[in-house]
C-alpha cells in the first residue's frame, strides 16, 4: 500500500510520539508517582525537561507513560476490533443466512445505544480498569468493521473471479487472500486509523470526567483535569496533555487519509 504525503506526515507524527514515550519510559530516572514537594510546579529545566506538576512529579515521566498508555489502548482496540469485525463480517456473508441473521441481532443491540454510553456503563462496573476500558471500546468499535466488511464481501462473493476460483477447487483461505482481502483492506485500514484516534479520545474523555483510569496513574485526560487548577501559575503544564491529545488525534486522522 502506497501512502500519500499527508499520510506519511501522520505516520511520522505518531512514530515520533511513540519514540518519545518509549525513550521517556526507559531513560527517565523518575517514576510517575515519585513526589518531590520541594520542587513543585517547576518550569522545564535540566533536571526535569518538562517541568514538575503540583506534587513535584516529573512531567517527562508522566507524559511518557501517559502517551504509552494511550498508544497501548489505541493499538489493542484497533487490532482487536478490526480482526473481530472483519472476520465476523466475512463469516456473515460466507456462512449463510442463519449466521448472518444471528450477527445482525447482536449488531442491532450494539447500535441501539450510543457508543460512549456503553463505554461509560462498563467503566462504572470497574472504575479505573484499563482492561474494562479496552473491552468496552473494542466492543463498540468492531461493529463498524463488521458492517463495512460485510457490505464489500457481499459484492466480492458474487464476482465471477471468486466463483471460478471456488470452482477450480481453491481453499477458503486462498480465496480470502486472493479476492476478499484486497477488496476490504483499504476500508479496514481507513477505519483502523480513525478507530485508533477514537479509542485514544474515548480514554482521554473518560479520564477528563474522572471515570477513566484513576490517579496516581498518568493518563492524558486525567492529567488535563488534575493540572487545570494551576493554569495561571503553570500554563506549560496544562498545555502538555492537551497538545499531545490533539497531536495524537491529528496524526491518526492524517494517517487515515480520507475524510471522515
Amino acid at each position, binding site marked *: 500500500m502506497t501512502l500519500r504525503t499527508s499520510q506519511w506526515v501522520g505516520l511520522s507524527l505518531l512514530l515520533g510520539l511513540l519514540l518519545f514515550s518509549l525513550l521517556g519510559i526507559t531513560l527517565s530516572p523518575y517514576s510517575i508517582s515519585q513526589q518531590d514537594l520541594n520542587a513543585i510546579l517547576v518550569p522545564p529545566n535540566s533536571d526535569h525537561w518538562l517541568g514538575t506538576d503540583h506534587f513535584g512529579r516529573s512531567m517527562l515521566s508522566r507524559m511518557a507513560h501517559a502517551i504509552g498508555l494511550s498508544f497501548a489502548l489505541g493499538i489493542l482496540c484497533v487490532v482487536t476490533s478490526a480482526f473481530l469485525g472483519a472476520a465476523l463480517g466475512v463469516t456473515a456473508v460466507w456462512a449463510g443466512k442463519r449466521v448472518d441473521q444471528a450477527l445482525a441481532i447482536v449488531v442491532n443491540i450494539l447500535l441501539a*445505544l*450510543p457508543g460512549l454510553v456503553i463505554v461509560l*456503563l462498563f467503566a462504572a462496573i470497574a472504575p479505573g480498569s484499563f482492561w474494562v476500558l479496552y473491552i468496552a471500546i473494542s466492543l463498540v468499535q468492531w461493529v463498524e468493521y463488521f458492517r463495512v466488511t460485510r457490505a464489500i464481501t457481499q459484492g466480492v462473493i458474487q464476482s465471477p473471479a471468486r466463483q471460478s476460483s471456488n470452482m477450480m477447487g481453491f481453499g477458503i483461505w486462498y480465496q480470502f487472500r486472493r479476492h476478499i482481502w484486497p477488496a476490504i483492506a483499504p476500508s479496514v485500514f481507513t477505519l483502523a486509523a480513525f478507530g485508533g484516534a477514537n479509542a485514544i479520545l474515548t480514554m482521554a474523555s473518560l479520564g477528563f*470526567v474522572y471515570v477513566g483510569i484513576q490517579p496516581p496513574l498518568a493518563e492524558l485526560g486525567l492529567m488535563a483535569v488534575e493540572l*487545570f487548577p494551576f493554569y495561571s501559575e503553570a500554563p506549560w503544564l496544562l498545555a502538555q496533555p492537551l497538545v499531545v491529545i490533539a497531536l495524537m488525534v*491529528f496524526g491518526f*486522522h492524517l494517517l487515515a487519509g480520507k475524510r*471522515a
Partner: protein
Amino acid sequence: MKALLLKRLLQLITVVWGVGTLTFVLMRSLPGDMAYRIAASRYGQDNVNSEAAALVREELGLNQHPLEAYWHWLTDLLQFNLGNSMVSGLPVIESVQHMLGHSMLLAFAGLMVSILIAIPLGLLSAWRGNPLDSVLMGLSSAIRAIPVFVIGVLFVLLFALHWGWFPVAGYGSFAHLVLPSVTLALSLAAVSNRVVRDAAKQTFRAAFYQFSKVKGLSAWQTFHRHGVRNIAVPVVAFFGIQLVSMIEGIVMIESLFSWPGIGHGLAHAIFARDIPVIQGAALAMGVVFVVLNTLVDLLCLWIDPRGVEQ
C-alpha cells in the same frame, strides 16, 4: 416507512432491555457490600457503620434472590419506575426529566450556532474556491483534531478566566449558555462546513445550474431557485446525523461547564455509584438516540423520497 418504524420500535425495546440488564449486572458486580457503599455515599465515608448499612439493606430489599431481583428490576423499568437516587433519595424520573430539558436546550443551541457558522463558511469555500478554500480546509482539519473538551478548556481559560466575559460554569442565564454551546458548535461546524462545501460545489458544477446562468438569470436568482434546495438535501441529512452523534460530545461539555444535563448527571452518578441514576440517565440517552435516529430517517425520506430505506 412502516418497516422503518417497526425496526426502530424493536430497537427501542432493545435499548430498555440492554440498559436495564447492564445496570442490573453493574449493581450486582460492584465490589464490596452494596449496603455499605450506598450508606457511605448517603451519609459520608466517616458515618458508616453496620447499623446504617442494615438500614439501607432493609430499605432497598437487597436480600432478594438474583433472578427474583432481576425480574423486579425489569418490571419496574417497564412501568417507568426508575426508583430513587441512592445519594439524594429523590425520584430518578424527576431528575431525568430535569436533566433532559437542559441537555436538549444545550444541544439545540449548539446545533443552531454550528449551522450559523457552517453554512456561510461552506458556501463561501465553494463559491470563492482557493486559496480561501484551502485555508478553511486546514482550519477545519485542525479543529477536528482537537477533542471537544480541549476546545472547552481553552474557551474557559480565555473567555471566562482571562477576560471574564462569561461565567465559568453553571446555568440559569443566557450568558451561561454561550460558552458551552459555542464549544459544541465549533467542533460540529468543523465537520459540517465541509459537507456544505461539497454539496454546494457539486450543485454549482451541475449542468442544470450552469444552464440557468446561461439563460440569463443573475447569480443570486440562480442560487435562490436552483441552488438552495439541491444543496439542502445532503446538508439537512448530515445535520440530523450530527444531532444524534452530539450525545457523545455533550457528556464532556456538560461535565466541563457543570451544565445540569444528562451527560453531567451520568458522569456524576457513575462517580458516586448511584445505580438508579446511572440507569435513568443511560436509558434517557438511549431513548433519545433511537427517537432522533428515527426522526432523521423520516426527514431524509421526506426531503428526498428517492432514497429508499434499506
